């Protein structure tokens, strides 16, 4: 019992200063992905949408526009399982975001622009 | 005109009611006529009883010279019997209002009503008896008539057994009472009760104490003192509800009356030890009575044990009174007499009420088992309110009558230090402690006794469809009104009882008991004081204050009303509630040395250890200690004696001829000598 007390004194305060100060260790927390629009071809986006088990990634309906449509990413549905990153590592990276609270549900649905259609062939990430 | 004349009217009315019941009881109109006559007799008896409280003792009246009863019928209306007679009359009125809706007109009912009215006459004769023989004849009449009462449905389970226990113990008690009377009358030379009372001193202290102890045991059989009480829980459940009410409300009180008669009039002992015995026996009875009450699921058995408890309280009060008398504390002697008699009146009212309500419940819901009832406050609202008044009274909660009489008893006991002897004082306080335990357990028991059947959700279908249509309400309602009147009108009651005490004991307690402004003082001004009237007013006001605060401070902004937070339970089921036995489980665990519980668990198959193979049968029993360890050995001893004697009557004709020959030979020899 005494040793515990002494050890605690030596170790010092372990409580985080968050939210008064930023928290350094938050970088390593698992969290939702960030996407590289330059590597997101329509075909890649389709594969990502198929790989996501919780339906967080969906292809937006394309209206034949020049920008090639969008990938709808629902941050709320993401479980940070990592399958999208495994499916297309060139297009997906960690976002490092953990302060994700939202006051309305629609704010959590993000539109990730896809690479334009006329750019479908050729360029790689 | 004396109170005795009122008793004559009552006896006449009851005799007419018995005849009317016997002849016409099989029809509805006859039933009502019989009950009307019974009510008339009850009113007369109540009037006579109340009057004799103030009138004092009438002279002894001798009726007739027939030698059939061993002499003329000697009657006297005494002050001591006044409360008991008033109670008898009032209970008779209440039961007469109750019976027409409770009983079905039939030949069995006709016999029952006749027996009931004969029992009423017997009780009145016991209370109005002026002579020893009259008393004993009336006592036996009452016992036998009550035996017939209990046997209303002779073929039902347990009826014959209950009635047999009642009769057997009644006769055993009768023997002891006869012995007590014989001792007193032979030592004093008188057979009238007033004669014995006046010349009690000539009997000698030892004989008086012996007579008192015989009377304590003999009347204790009827009053239900432990261990002589075993007939009560057997006989009360099987008798019809108004029969049980009569037994508990009046007949048990007659046993108490007998003890009071010997303690205060006929054989007041000169030492303290008979009083100590009575007080100790009473205290133990009270505690054991309520402890067994906690283990009962049948409402009537529960109430029977509660009667035992209250009889114990009354006998404790009388015993303590005797101790104070022997120690020279006359004021406390009179106070405890008053307190005991007051408790008799109170208990008669609320116990009768509770038994009548138990009968209503049994007819409405079809069962007496508390664990099959529940939620009756919604199905039987008027009965529930009346039963609640009775429950408050018997739990001795202020402001009702039970509280006033128990307060007086406690205040009398707490002044035990005024006797000179330390040992006596300690024993009196010990008895007060046991009574305190009893009081606490009584509240617990009656929370269970009212809460389980009346509150919560119905546990079975028959409780859910119980209906109040056609159930008697007037009789119990009268008793509930009496309970309230006895408490709010406590000053009036105490005034009348102090006059009684003056007649019986010669002590004028009036100024020491009620010093004017509605306050009651237990005989010594430096001890305690209490005002039942002011307490009632205060409690009513105290309940009104939160209401006023709410009305004045209601939030003006819009507010929402939502259900009470219940833990988010989706659907309540009746089996989620307490059952009667689980509610009293803490008591059974604490006092398991008394209960000696035994549990048996069995299941159909042991294949599945989780019990999914079928229903599990769980049975928990309380050992009937007195039957097993006292009565059964006695009965075995008697049977053993009988076995010894049996060879005498072997059925062998040759042996009988030998007897004839031996007797003739003996007759010749004796004739020759």
């Amino acid at each position, binding site marked *: 019992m005494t040793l515990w007390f002494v050890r605690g004194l030596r170790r010092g305060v372990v*409580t985080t200063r968050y*939210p008064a100060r930023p928290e350094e260790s938050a970088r390593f927390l698992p969290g*939702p992905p960030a996407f590289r629009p*330059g590597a997101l071809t329509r075909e890649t986006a389709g594969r990502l949408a198929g790989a996501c088990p919780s339906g967080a990634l969906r292809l937006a309906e394309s209206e034949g526009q020049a920008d090639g449509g969008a990938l709808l990413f*629902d941050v709320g549905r993401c*479980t*940070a*399982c990592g399958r999208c990153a495994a499916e297309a590592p060139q297009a997906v990276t960690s976002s490092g975001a953990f302060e*994700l609270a939202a006051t309305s549900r629609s704010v959590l649905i993000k539109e*990730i622009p896809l690479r334009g259609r006329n750019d479908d062939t050729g360029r790689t990430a | 005109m004396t109170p005795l004349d009122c008793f004559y009217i009552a006896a006449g009315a009851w005799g007419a009611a018995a005849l009317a019941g016997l002849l016409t009881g099989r029809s509805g109109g006859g039933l009502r006529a019989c009950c009307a006559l019974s009510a008339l007799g009850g009113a007369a008896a109540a009037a006579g009883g109340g009057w004799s409280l103030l009138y004092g003792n009438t002279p002894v009246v001798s009726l007739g010279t027939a030698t059939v009863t061993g002499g003329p019928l000697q009657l006297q209306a005494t002050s001591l019997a006044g409360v008991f007679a008033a109670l008898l009359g009032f209970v008779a009125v209440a039961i007469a209002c109750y019976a027409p809706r409770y009983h079905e007109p039939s030949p069995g009912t006709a016999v029952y009503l006749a027996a009931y009215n004969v029992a009423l006459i017997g009780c009145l004769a016991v209370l109005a008896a002026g002579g020893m023989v009259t008393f004993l004849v009336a006592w036996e009449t009452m016992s036998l008539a009550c035996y017939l009462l209990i046997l209303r449905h002779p073929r039902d389970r347990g009826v014959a057994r209950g009635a047999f226990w009642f009769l057997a113990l009644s006769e055993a008690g009768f023997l002891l009472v006869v012995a007590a009377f014989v001792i007193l009358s032979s030592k004093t030379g008188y057979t009238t009760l007033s004669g014995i009372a006046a010349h009690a001193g000539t009997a000698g202290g030892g004989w008086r104490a012996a007579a008192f102890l015989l009377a304590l045991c003999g009347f204790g059989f009827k009053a239900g003192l432990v261990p002589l009480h075993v007939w009560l829980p057997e006989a009360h459940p099987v008798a019809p509800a108004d029969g049980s009410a009569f037994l508990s409300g009046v007949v048990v009180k007659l046993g108490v009356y007998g003890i009071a008669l010997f303690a205060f009039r006929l054989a007041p002992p000169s030492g303290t030890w008979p009083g100590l015995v009575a007080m100790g026996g009473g205290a133990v009875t009270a505690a054991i009575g309520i402890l067994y009450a906690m283990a009962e699921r049948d409402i009537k058995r529960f109430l029977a044990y509660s009667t035992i408890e209250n009889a114990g309280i009354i006998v404790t009060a009388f015993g303590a009174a005797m101790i104070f008398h022997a120690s020279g504390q006359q004021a406390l002697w009179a106070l405890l007499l008053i307190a005991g008699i007051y408790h008799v009146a109170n208990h008669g009212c609320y116990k009768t009420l509770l038994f009548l309500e138990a009968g209503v419940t049994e007819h409405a819901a079809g069962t007496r088992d508390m664990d099959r009832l529940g939620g009756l406050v919604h199905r039987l609202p008027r009965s529930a309110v009346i039963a609640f008044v009775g429950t408050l009274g018997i739990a001795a909660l202020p402001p009702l009558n039970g509280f006033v009489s128990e307060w007086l008893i406690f205040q009398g006991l707490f002044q035990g230090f005024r006797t000179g002897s330390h040992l006596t004082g300690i024993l009196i306080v010990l008895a007060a402690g046991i009574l305190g335990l009893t009081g606490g357990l009584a509240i617990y028991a009656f929370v269970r006794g009212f809460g389980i059947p009346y509150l919560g959700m119905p546990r079975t279908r028959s409780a859910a469809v119980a209906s109040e249509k056609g159930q008697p309400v007037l009789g119990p309602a009268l008793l509930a009104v009496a309970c309230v009147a006895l408490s709010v009108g406590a000053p009036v009651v105490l005034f009348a009882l102090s006059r009684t005490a003056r007649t019986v004991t010669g002590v004028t307690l009036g100024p020491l008991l009620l010093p004017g402004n509605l306050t009651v003082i237990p005989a010594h001004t430096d001890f305690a004081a209490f005002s039942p009237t002011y307490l009632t007013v205060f409690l009513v006001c105290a309940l009104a204050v939160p209401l006023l605060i709410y009305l004045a401070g209601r939030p003006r902004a819009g507010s929402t009303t939502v259900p009470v937070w219940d833990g988010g339970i989706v659907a309540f089921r009746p089996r989620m509630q307490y059952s009667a036995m689980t509610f009293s489980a803490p008591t059974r665990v604490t006092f398991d040395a008394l209960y000696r519980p035994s549990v048996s668990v069995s299941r159909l198959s042991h294949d599945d250890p989780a019990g999914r193979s079928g229903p599990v049968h769980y049975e928990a029993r309380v050992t009937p200690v007195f039957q097993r360890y006292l009565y059964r050995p006695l009965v075995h001893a008697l049977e053993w004696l009988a076995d010894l004697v049996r060879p005498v009557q072997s059925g062998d004709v040759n042996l009988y001829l030998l007897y004839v020959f031996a007797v003739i030979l003996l007759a010749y020899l004796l004739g020759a000598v």
Partner: protein
Amino acid sequence: MTPEELRETIARQFGRSLHIRTLDTGSCAVCEQEIRLLAAPHYDLHRLGFFFTPAPRHADLLLVTGPMIRAFEVAARKTYDAMPGPKIVVAVGACALGGVYPDDPFTYGTVDAVLPVDVWIPGCPPSPLALLHGLGVAVGRLTEKVRDLPFTAEDDDERIRGAR
């Protein structure tokens, strides 16, 4: 009262002392583990003036996890109704936000189907830091950041983008 006024009131009243009632509507209990860690020394909820309470009558904020299985609907509504106003509902975890379970005969799939949610906290499970941020947003002490996060990264930029 407009939402802004409400938030202001709530921030004023709750920002420094808040009682939280947790409600598990059928989760896998990992969100509960994270919520439980809030009271541990590393995150220490109490230094911010937030407390857990079991009684909805004493609670200001209802912290809901799980996909709102249908069997729990009555209990959830009773808990919400038992809370005196003003009250806040915070939905925690991907299950409560509609991610994991669909709307089928056994679950609603999202807490929003039964209770009116004020703050959504994504994550599976959200870390205690994310929960602290979410609670701060609920009482108006912290600002909502996810609105401005694009969740995109430059093609050749391996640096972490987003909130900091």
